[in-house]
């Protein structure tokens, strides 16, 4: 019996997107495909073009080059159709601080022309757990609550795609976890999520990761794929004074990153032999125990960032 899996429907399918601001190319030949119902983490250093890419996907910016579809609609021509089925959460709180929580949700619902508005807003407030605080001004909410409210506003019109731009920046761990639980719940109901973040633990909670640096896609796949494909070697050193070695090892040949985590040291490099040569002088100290380890996502991204930087013109 032939098992030909049906070709997965792509929620996002963009090719060679280019965006320039004057002489500066912010996004350069970016391509990305995300299957329906997946949570795709969008990572990359600051200024790497994540926000610009998200804005192009949701129709807020017109690409200078490239093409693509979003939920089957053309990126440039069917902008309105994309807007109706997409929820975009801006990096900065985009709701009205001088409206109450309920008024904000009602406004968003009216703009999308939703039926049963009262019922939907009630449900949304209940899901958020803000029913009792619904008449407070949105500006009075703490950072974590603001982000959860913004997310609730984004999904009020039941979009098929969520674009979240650093939704948990500056939010405490508990609120972040609550936020991600909600994201997973939405994904389970079939919504595709493209979420940009700087947090590695969040990257690990994504189904897959896209890493962008200086406007180009550098790595793509699940967290495990990326670790496997990185070909990076890593060692962990523990013992008194291990953490102090970071400064000495950071610029040694063969070491792409050396960082202290509490009392332990974490080093990694692309070439195992070279890395071992670099740490050899310190292995003689009997008090410090060296163990080979798997590189972390952070190791890989910092390594990739360095590579991208080398490739970047004028860098």
């Amino acid at each position, binding site marked *: 019996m032939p098992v030909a899996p049906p070709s997965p429907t792509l929620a996002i399918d963009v090719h060679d997107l280019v965006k320039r601001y004057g002489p500066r190319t912010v996004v350069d030949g970016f391509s990305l495909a995300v299957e329906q119902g997946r949570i795709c983490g969008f990572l990359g250093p600051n200024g790497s073009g994540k926000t610009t890419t998200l*804005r192009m996907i*949701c*129709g*807020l*910016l*017109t690409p200078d080059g490239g093409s693509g579809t979003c939920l089957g609609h053309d990126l440039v021509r069917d*902008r*309105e159709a994309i*807007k*109706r089925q*997409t929820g*975009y959460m*801006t990096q*900065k*709180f*985009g*709701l*009205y*601080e001088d409206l109450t929580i309920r008024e904000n949700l009602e406004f*968003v619902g009216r*703009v*999308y022309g939703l039926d049963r508005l009262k019922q939907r807003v009630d449900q949304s407030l209940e899901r958020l757990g803000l029913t009792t605080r619904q008449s407070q001004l949105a500006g009075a909410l703490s950072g974590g609550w603001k982000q959860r409210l913004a997310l609730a506003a984004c999904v009020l019109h039941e979009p098929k795609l969520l674009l979240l731009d650093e939704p948990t920046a500056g939010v405490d761990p508990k609120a972040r976890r609550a936020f991600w639980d909600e994201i997973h719940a939405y994904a389970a109901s079939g919504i595709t999520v493209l979420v940009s973040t700087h947090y590695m633990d969040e990257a690990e909670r994504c189904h897959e990761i896209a890493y962008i640096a200086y406007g180009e896609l550098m790595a793509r796949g699940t967290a495990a794929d990326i670790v496997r494909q990185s070909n990076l070697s890593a060692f962990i050193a523990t013992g008194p004074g291990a953490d102090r070695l970071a400064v000495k090892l950071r610029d040694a040949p063969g070491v792409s990153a050396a960082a202290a985590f509490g009392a332990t040291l974490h080093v990694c490099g692309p070439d195992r032999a070279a890395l071992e040569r670099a740490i050899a002088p310190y292995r003689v100290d009997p008090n410090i125990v060296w163990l080979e380890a798997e590189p972390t996502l952070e190791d890989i991204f910092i390594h990739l960032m360095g590579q991208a930087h080398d490739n970047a013109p004028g860098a």
Partner: protein
Amino acid sequence: MIMARMIMARLPIARLTMGRGFLRRLGAVIMKEVLQLRRDRLTFAMMFGMPIMQLLLFGYAIDTDPHRLPTAVIAADQSQITRTVLSALANTGYMSFTHRPTSEEEANALLQRGEVQFVVTIPSDFTRRLVRGERAQILIDADATDPLAAANPLAAAGPAINQALARDFIGPLAGLRNKADAVELVVQRRYNPEGKARLNIVPGLLAVILTMTMVMMTALAVTRERERGTMENLLAMPVRPIEVMIGKIAPYIVIGSVQVVVILLVSRLLFDVTIEGSVTLLSIGTALFITVNLAIGFTISTLTQNQLQAMQASFFMMLPSILLSGFMFPFRGMPVWAQWIGEALPATHFMRIVRGVMLKGADLGAVSGELVALVAMLLIVSTLAISRYKVTLD
């Protein structure tokens, strides 16, 4: 004792270091402020460009003693003496005979529409009565809505006529020369018989207050969205520019209307300014004017980056609306180029509508030109606003 001396000795030093610290910190704040100011180029340009431009503009444009005011003449009596009288009036420099209406009705219409400032009527028996030594009358109807514009010409008219005639009274008429009041000047200050400035100012204020609040309100309403970062969120939702524009403007139309009602009520109760003409016509004109101002405010908001710039641009719009619209100074006192600038301001046209309807009882025909001008401005400004408002963040 020793302690006290020690404290005394240490005090000046402590004060000195405190003073230095104060200046250093003050300097840091000033420097930061100057740096920020330098970054905001538009504000910087407006701060220096605006005063210079306005000084030149208003310095040259404003003349509180307007000359060559358009005047209609009905000369039912054609004689050497009437010609002398008319040229004497023209020679004052205040009147310029632009219209020769054939009937009183025609002349009244000209006055009501504001096309002429004065109507000079010389009755058919003027020369005859004068020669006979009877009292001869010349009638001047003045549009006194703006008492300032009418005062000097009227004051100059009488002496000018008598002086000129004195030169003409030769031969058989020489006997008239010593009669001081050979010609009686009958002056009718129309629309504002008592020459009260407030009759002119109060309706004009309507235009100024509406310009002030309406333009600024909308300009700030949109830039606020951009400054607070809510614009990006709004643009990501399926709202069209026209919907945002009308939606932003509509509440202010209501606010503007309430302002108008309040101003009119207060004018009536405290200043005794009543509406001579049709309230409906006044309402139509007002609604149109409010809408034009809101559209201007919206356009400003699409051109500026932050609320400060929007505020400054609104002031830039407001000052000419006060100074060049005929509100503060007689419109006809300005040089032609300044009158053209004035014609381009909605406040000028609205000022004429309000004064026409409230003081002169002007009808639709009399203000139709001004209404058309406002509609034209509305179309131009709205087109500009919509073309400038972007659906994307590009």
